[in-house]
């Protein structure tokens, strides 16, 4: 029987050697960010002993850079801190609104987008938004950092590409150029504090005449992982993102979705709603891009 322990490394190097030492000793190590999934799971579906390795004191995981070409968001930064950063919110409004949807004020003060992704729930709200804006995961690994596009990170319900000796440092996101913007919408039966029935993230670029030159669409909670919808992006590119193009994008999302029936909605309902959300998120991203 192992025991519980808590460690708070302050650098990537120290965190990696901590994970390696725990693995060598045969102990289970678990990264801890805001703890809003970890603590709930520790009381219900996952009670066993482990060593918590807190990412919040790792310097690199607390970095936030807004560069000319790239934005870096550390995995240890709480959603509330991101949401209070007006510049970041202006550049990536869709990603930040997804982060802002997670839980209450209290949850916002702790929860991270890194934890949301690493928890790898099919309904994780930031995952479609991260995929849409082209976020690349920077993973600390014993052999050096490695990078994985967000759409390839989650491998199944609650599983992802991380090895036990690895952890997520943060996200590299191409800084949106020109008239580029994003949006994320989810549907829940209440107005706050619930898990998505489905969600849709859209990022798109318009040229000077308002014609869409690039788009990425991702949908959540309608399959075991968030899905990229190439057909929806193709329906938008080359158009003015008008009602007809948005309707075609909606149909592409509905067609690609593979939802299940549970207490939050039936297969038919989710298929329909994910299309509606794609259409609405597309219109919001378009209007945001036009306003730039």
């Amino acid at each position, binding site marked *: 029987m192992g*025991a519980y322990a808590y460690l*708070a490394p302050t650098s990537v190097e120290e965190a990696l050697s901590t994970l390696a030492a725990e693995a060598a000793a045969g102990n289970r190590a678990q990264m801890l960010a805001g*703890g809003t999934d970890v603590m709930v799971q520790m009381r219900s579906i996952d009670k066993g002993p482990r060593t918590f390795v807190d990412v919040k004191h790792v310097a690199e995981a607390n970095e936030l850079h807004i560069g000319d070409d790239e934005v870096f968001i550390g995995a240890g930064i709480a959603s509330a801190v991101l949401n209070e950063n007006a510049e970041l919110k202006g550049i990536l409004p869709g990603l930040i609104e997804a982060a802002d949807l997670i839980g*209450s004020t*209290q*949850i916002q003060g702790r929860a991270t987008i890194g934890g949301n992704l690493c928890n790898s729930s099919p309904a994780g709200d930031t995952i479609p938004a991260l995929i849409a804006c082209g976020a690349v995961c920077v993973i600390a690994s014993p052999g050096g950092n490695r990078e994985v596009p967000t759409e390839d990170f989650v491998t199944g319900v609650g599983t992802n590409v991380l090895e036990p000796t690895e952890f997520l440092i943060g996200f590299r996101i191409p800084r949106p150029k020109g008239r580029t913007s994003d949006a994320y919408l989810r549907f829940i039966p209440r107005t706050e504090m619930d898990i998505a029935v489905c969600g849709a993230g859209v990022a798109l670029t318009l040229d000077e005449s308002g014609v869409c030159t690039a788009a990425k669409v991702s949908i959540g909670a309608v399959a075991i992982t968030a899905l990229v919808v190439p057909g929806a992006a193709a329906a938008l590119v080359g158009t003015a993102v008008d009602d007809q193009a948005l309707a075609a994008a909606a149909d592409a999302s509905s067609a690609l979705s593979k939802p299940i029936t549970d207490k939050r909605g039936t297969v038919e309902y989710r298929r329909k709603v994910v299309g509606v959300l794609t259409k609405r998120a597309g219109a919001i991203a378009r209007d945001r891009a036009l306003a730039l």
Partner: protein
Amino acid sequence: MSKVHVLTSINGDAVEFLCEPHQSLLEVLRDELGLTGTKEGCATGDCGACSVMIDERLVCSCLMLGVEAEGVEVTTIEGIAGADGLHVIQQKYLEHAALQCGICTPGFIVATKALLDKNPDPDETTIRYWLAGNLCRCTGYDKIVRAVQDAAQSLAYEA
């Protein structure tokens, strides 16, 4: 199991305690330190009865490990009233009958304090969204919202 030594600040006082690495801050406050004003409603982040402030940020103490309190400033419901009596927010909750059984009240009051510290003049929608993580079984929320509005006005008048 080896206990961890933690040095923290609670309601302005330096506090040292020993806890298990997996004990929540809520358990430490209530069971180790006797600060039972902070309540446990769900222990899963849903009800807000356990709300405390960590360095000016509102959090659920049930979702935080006690060991994570190392080096931070914790404010609990016991730290809200002043030496000369109840805080205006507490007074207004009483005046507006914004509590019945009272189990949710410490969490609501700490959450209200966090809101008014950050935004002294919130509109009703802001108040309702800010408090969406605090559940009340008894009052129907309306009296709570009125108490918060009145407290905001009184604090603005005092300032």
